[in-house]
């Protein structure tokens, strides 16, 4: 028997198993704080650093950052940029391309983010997120260049 019964450790689970469990807890009436992985919501949210506070989403609207199952077992936490009837277009803030899903694929929405290890939440109905969202979404035509300036990456073949 191991001596460490309650040691602190980081466990990574496959999204396709873990997130349905999280969604089950949301359906049971909980909210969930979830560590974020991936770079697709840059520059506001950083891989492995920030956390999202999620709750069930009854009425998704354009601009919401939502947890969506865009294909079987493939989940993303991205921003809604268009809703046309039942069809939803999503785009990660750090992405240039869109994803598509149905309204029924939207499982939860982010009501706030814990950034940079802060205890205080940046709520998505707060001024900071709304200002950032307005600017960042309106600067979409320049996004490719902005991302390159913020996160310069020269592919190996050009070095």
């Amino acid at each position, binding site marked *: 028997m191991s001596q460490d*019964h*309650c040691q602190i450790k980081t466990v990574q689970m496959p999204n396709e198993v873990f997130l349905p469990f999280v969604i089950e807890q949301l359906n*049971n009436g909980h909210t969930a704080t979830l560590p974020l992985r991936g770079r697709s919501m840059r520059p506001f949210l950083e891989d492995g650093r920030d956390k999202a506070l999620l709750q069930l989403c009854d009425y998704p609207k354009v601009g919401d950052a939502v947890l969506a199952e865009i294909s079987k077992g493939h989940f993303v936490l991205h921003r809604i940029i268009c809703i046309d009837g039942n069809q939803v277009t999503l785009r990660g803030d750090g992405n240039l391309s869109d994803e598509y899903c149905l309204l029924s694929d939207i499982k939860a929405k982010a009501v706030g983010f814990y950034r940079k290890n802060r205890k205080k939440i940046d709520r998505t109905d707060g001024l900071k997120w709304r200002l950032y969202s307005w600017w960042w979404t309106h600067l979409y035509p320049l996004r490719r260049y902005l991302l390159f300036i913020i996160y310069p990456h020269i592919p190996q073949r050009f070095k």
Partner: protein
Amino acid sequence: MKTKKGFKLRTICGENIIVAEGVENIDFSRIISMNESAAYLWKNIQGADFDADMLTKLLLEEYDIDEATARQDATQLIAKWQEAGIIA
């Protein structure tokens, strides 16, 4: 002592985790997970009044270890569970 109500053991991807059903928010960035032996004990003491003797006995029934080791593990585990706030 007893296990507190509302702390349910679930197995996700081979990890035994404790889900606090009584709290509004579940923080998945800091969740209690248990190894196989702790989970075995937790399952077997649900709703029962338990002490270190009972955990020791359960460990001896399931694992091939001597009593002193089992008792030491049981005592340590109780302290850890108290620290985590899942028993009272």
